[in-house]
């Protein structure tokens, strides 16, 4: 959607590394839902040659960038409530259709934030009991229904591992998610466990293992991730 900005890797924030890596997973013509926060950054790093449809679960297929100053429409926002545009050929959908598409397997990919992911590939991302109970919003439907679920999150939270043997926070779904993308690693949950696929830019395998609370399967060759 936006132009690729060429930046020296050294100045990239962890979130930018994650967003640029996730952008490489998106394929031409897909229907993609980006969660609010970090996941929404992914749209900025898609090459202009890749045309995808972004769904905002609050009611539009064909979500576009921020509108020009003074042209915001109070009836057109994303799931975070921020003003957006609609691309030519966009479709308005009500919430029943929106979640019908999600639950019915029509959504190719969702990119969500995470609080914990465990060795089974299960995600917890909607509450911290007694502390933060925002509600699951659309997250449970997205994880249960999307063809592909990518968890985009910083690798650990203030020194506490977020990739853990078994989630201690309430689960979002018992479905094994597709891929974990952090600033340190790309990890794929498999039948055998969590498989380390790629290293972050300049990151060693030792650094990844030290920041990870779960067991990782480490193949002989773990290439450095390529960024969009």
């Amino acid at each position, binding site marked *: 959607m936006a132009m690729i900005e060429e930046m020296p890797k050294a100045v990239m924030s962890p979130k930018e590394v994650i967003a640029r890596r996730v952008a490489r997973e998106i394929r031409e013509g897909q229907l993609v839902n980006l969660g609010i926060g970090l996941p929404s950054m992914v749209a900025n790093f898609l090459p202009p040659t890749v045309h995808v449809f972004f769904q905002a679960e609050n*009611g539009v297929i064909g979500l576009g960038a921020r509108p020009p100053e003074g042209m915001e429409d109070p*009836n057109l926002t994303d799931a975070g409530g921020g003003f957006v545009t609609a691309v030519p050929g966009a479709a308005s959908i009500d*919430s029943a259709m929106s979640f*019908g598409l999600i*639950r019915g397997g029509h959504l190719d990919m969702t990119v969500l934030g995470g609080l914990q992911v465990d060795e089974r590939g299960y995600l917890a991302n909607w509450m911290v009991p007694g502390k933060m*109970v925002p*509600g699951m919003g659309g*997250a449970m*439907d997205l994880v249960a229904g999307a063809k592909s679920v990518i968890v985009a999150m910083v690798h650990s939270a203030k020194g506490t591992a977020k990739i853990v043997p078994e989630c201690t926070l*309430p689960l979002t779904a018992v479905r094994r998610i597709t891929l974990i993308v952090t600033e340190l690693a790309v990890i794929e949950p498999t039948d055998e466990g969590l498989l380390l696929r790629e290293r972050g830019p300049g990151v060693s395998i030792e650094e990844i293992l030290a920041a990870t609370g779960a067991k990782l399967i480490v193949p002989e060759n773990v290439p450095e991730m390529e960024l969009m």
Partner: protein
Amino acid sequence: MKKAISPAAAAELIPEGATLLIGGFMAVGSPIRMIDALVARKIGNLTVVANDTAMPGKGIGKLISAGLVRRVVASHIGLNPETQAKMISGEVEVELVPQGTLVERIRAGGVGLGGILTATGIGTLVAEGKQIVEVDGRPYILEKPIRGDFALVNAQQADYLGNLEYSLTAHNFNPIMALAADTVIAEPHHIVPIGVIPPDGVKTPGVVVDYLLERAA
């Protein structure tokens, strides 16, 4: 022909303790004038079914701030710290429902289905205490229908018969809620003559709408 009534007159229809389905997503597509009239009338003990409680001072958030709500059924309250604080203090009871399940439960209430069978929430806190129904070997949660005493919906445009059109992301829960309440009060931005909305443009047939809020002053 519908009767156009003032927000105050519409609020008079609603008794203490009523269950209200209220359209909107973070106050986008919410019936703002209707909400203001409820706050002015101070009818309390309400049950509000809505996607979210918006933010303090915005949309449904005003009902929360005013202390008129006893129970909330929503998918998300994360952007309204007042709702969260009142939930923790016990002043407001909150039932959190996955968004797709919430809208589909309301639809089931509106279209006369006995409930819905969804895989969303299987294996999570959401499934606790609920009946699990197996269909061809796969488990689904049986989630019950939701209906309201009143549906308060926002629309872009209504005609004199109450046929409704919605705009962009202001659709959200409105067309579904308009099917699922004993009394449906619509708050349109515009009211136009019969025939201005063509049959193929009608998203909510006027036959399900009971009252239109009169045009804004």
